[in-house]
């Protein structure tokens, strides 16, 4: 299934697939009537279908997984619009495609506003701080990082020590990109104050 394909409308579909799709249509019909077991079965069967379709559109697995969930939420919201007399897959794929487009647009907006933190690598104003360890040791640095508030410690660890991207760090921690940026900035100020004796 690709974005341009017309699922459910092909004539050379194997018989087992046809019956599987018909079963999905039956399940959503039952779900519309309030059958929760049918609804649970339906949603569980949709997950691998959606993972396959959405996974082809989005490279990042965590993004794809989020879009699968958003699609399930939209299916829930829009389940009353499905007409059992019509094919099920075009209805489902239209919803999934919309959520993929929304995600791609959101990514484009975010990446347009994202600031590359590598530009702030030389944060300390005094040369020695940027060029050498000066009179503090890696252990002192680790202690200083350990003393940071939780969010700042997470931000500096993920972004500076593990060299994760903002998006990866955000995905791993659940902290927003904006918060990560602010936390990193504040963490660096605190570290500078503690290690070099500057003001925080």
């Amino acid at each position: 299934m690709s974005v341009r394909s017309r699922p459910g409308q092909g004539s050379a579909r194997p018989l087992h697939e046809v019956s599987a799709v018909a079963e999905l249509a039956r399940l959503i019909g039952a779900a519309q009537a309030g059958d929760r077991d049918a609804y649970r079965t339906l949603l569980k069967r949709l997950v691998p279908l959606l993972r396959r379709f959405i996974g082809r559109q989005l490279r990042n697995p965590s993004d794809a997984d989020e879009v699968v969930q958003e699609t399930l939420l939209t299916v829930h919201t829009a389940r009353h619009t499905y007409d059992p007399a019509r094919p099920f897959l075009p209805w489902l794929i239209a919803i999934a495609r919309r959520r993929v487009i929304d995600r791609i647009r959101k990514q484009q907006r975010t990446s347009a506003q994202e600031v590359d933190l590598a530009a702030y690598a030389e944060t300390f104003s005094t040369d020695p701080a940027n060029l050498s360890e000066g009179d503090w040791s890696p252990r002192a640095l680790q202690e200083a990082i350990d003393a940071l508030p939780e969010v700042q410690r997470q931000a500096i660890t993920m972004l500076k020590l593990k060299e994760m991207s903002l998006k990866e760090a955000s995905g791993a921690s659940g902290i927003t990109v904006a918060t990560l940026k602010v936390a990193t900035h504040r963490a660096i100020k605190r570290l500078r104050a503690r290690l070099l004796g500057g003001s925080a």
Partner: protein
Amino acid sequence: MTTALIESLVAVAVPVRRLPPPWLRALQWLGFAAAMLAVFSLSHSFRYNIEHCLRAPLWLAMCVGAAMTAVLAAVAALELGVPGRSRRWALLPMPTLAVWLCAVATRDTWIDTGRDALGWSGIADCLATVVLIGVPLGIAMAIMLRRAAVLQPALTAALGGVAVAGVVSAALHVFHPLHATLWILLSNAGIAALFAGLGVLIAPRLLVPAAR
């Protein structure tokens, strides 16, 4: 995570009333429009020369073109409100829209200063018609689209706006003696653009959310 989501959705799943077919919903909206026009006609008389107009091909092309565009645009908008329907539904009102706007474009009198010239009170009357008919119809269309699951909000809302504009323009032709092309242009293309534009403005609110 996904399993937990599924369980939470199943937990709140209640029986839902299936959305009627788009053509039936379009019929409901058009019935509401007809009722609006009937109520409007109680307080407003038809234009003084309606019998003459009914024999004029150009007037008929404008009026019937606007009305047919309203019908077809309403069907198209409500079809697009259902996931999986082809975007080609958007082409449905195009032939009648072309007839309607071409009829407008063939006018040759730009400003009318004679008996049929619109005075300020005539302009105010026209605007009142636009608001009194257009606003309730626009709200009704927005409610109907919200009840559906709009996935292409701008296109769908623009079509809904054109449907409203078609009814409003037809009403203006029937109730107001518009002769000068400037007014006819405003009361047709201008209103179509106005309502389609308003539709596009509210379009983001129509997009089916991930959860309601």
